[in-house]
């Protein structure tokens, strides 16, 4: 059964309006305690370190704890170029993460492949895993990363992350209430 997980913003707003107090509260908790799995493959990692360091201080948004185990993390940050050879690895890391989980594609290479257009570079990590927020830039400025994080927190709060939407859709299908 193919589960449709793309939505428009209006649908999201409707779902947000229908979400329960429990969902809103748990999402509020989730958005301020994003445990990051840094899947760092390339030079964007330097920029990630700068964001994680004290100057830009991602800890202000509650996402300062890097967890190098996918089981303990709920935000996968794909930082840098992903090659075709790494595709199974990144997919496996994503599959091992516990629900709900979110993905940020950090930099143009992870978003679209960047300036690579050749035999070995995957044209964006969204070929393999669903991406919630794309950060452009080569590498992105720390402000862009923080902006993306705030965007993601907004998504987490309103339940618009891909894994949240899929879970909700599956619940609706299981309850027989899916209208579409």
């Amino acid at each position, binding site marked *: 059964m*193919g*589960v449709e*997980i*793309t939505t428009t913003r209006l649908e999201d707003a409707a779902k947000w309006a229908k979400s329960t107090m429990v969902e809103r509260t748990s999402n509020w908790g989730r958005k301020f305690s994003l445990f990051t799995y840094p899947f760092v493959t390339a030079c964007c990692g330097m920029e990630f370190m700068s964001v994680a360091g004290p100057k830009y201080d991602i800890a202000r948004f509650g996402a300062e704890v890097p967890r190098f185990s996918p089981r303990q993390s709920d935000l996968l940050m794909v930082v840098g170029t992903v090659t*075709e*050879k790494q*595709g*199974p690895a990144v*997919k496996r890391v994503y599959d091992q993460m516990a629900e709900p989980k979110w993905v940020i594609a950090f930099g143009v290479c992870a*978003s*679209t492949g960047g300036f690579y*257009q*050749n*035999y*070995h*570079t*995957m*044209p*964006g990590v*969204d*070929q*393999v*895993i*669903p*991406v919630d927020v*794309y950060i452009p830039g080569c590498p992105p400025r720390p402000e862009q990363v923080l902006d993306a994080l705030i965007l993601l927190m907004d998504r987490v709060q309103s339940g618009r992350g*891909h894994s949240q939407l899929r879970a909700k859709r599956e619940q609706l299908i299981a309850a027989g209430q899916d209208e579409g």
Partner: protein
Amino acid sequence: MAQKVLDSLKAHHPAAIEHTESQHGDEIAWVKRDHLLAVATWLKTDPTMRFDAPVFCTCIDRLDWRPLGVPLSQAWTEDKPRFEVCYQLRSVTHRYRIRLKIAVLESDPSVPSLAGLWPAFNWQERETFDMYGIRFDGHPDLRRIYLYDEFVGYPLRKDYPKEKRQPLVRRDDLPMNPIKVAREHKPEHK
């Protein structure tokens, strides 16, 4: 400076050297394929040479290369060698440098392996095999080093399509990236 290496090489192996040249201070000896192992062994073991430091091994694809004024149709034909396998060697003892080049036909892309003489060439030759498909006879472990075993073809050959990817895993049920949707729907520039 290493001109005397070339002279000595020609004196000791007159049948093995096709010709020699010197470019930008680098001495190049074109070696016949069947004599490569003998020449390399001599370069390594002879006390006046002692090439003890292997620098790199690579290959050049001369598919589209042609001298100025030669039309494209005559640039490369079957009897002209398409590949040049290069070995760069260095003698730390005598401060010599030399580059060995072997002309290889496309129909039989194989070269005797020098990994037995200099173990550092083991992975270099594997990389050359991975990228150009040159088979190194006598190599202890000739398989792909960078790419995955499912990869078909040799990507640094000039007739490999520039953007051809061979993905290991793809998912069709993922949401589309709006940037890429816009890019794909852009009309072709003709």
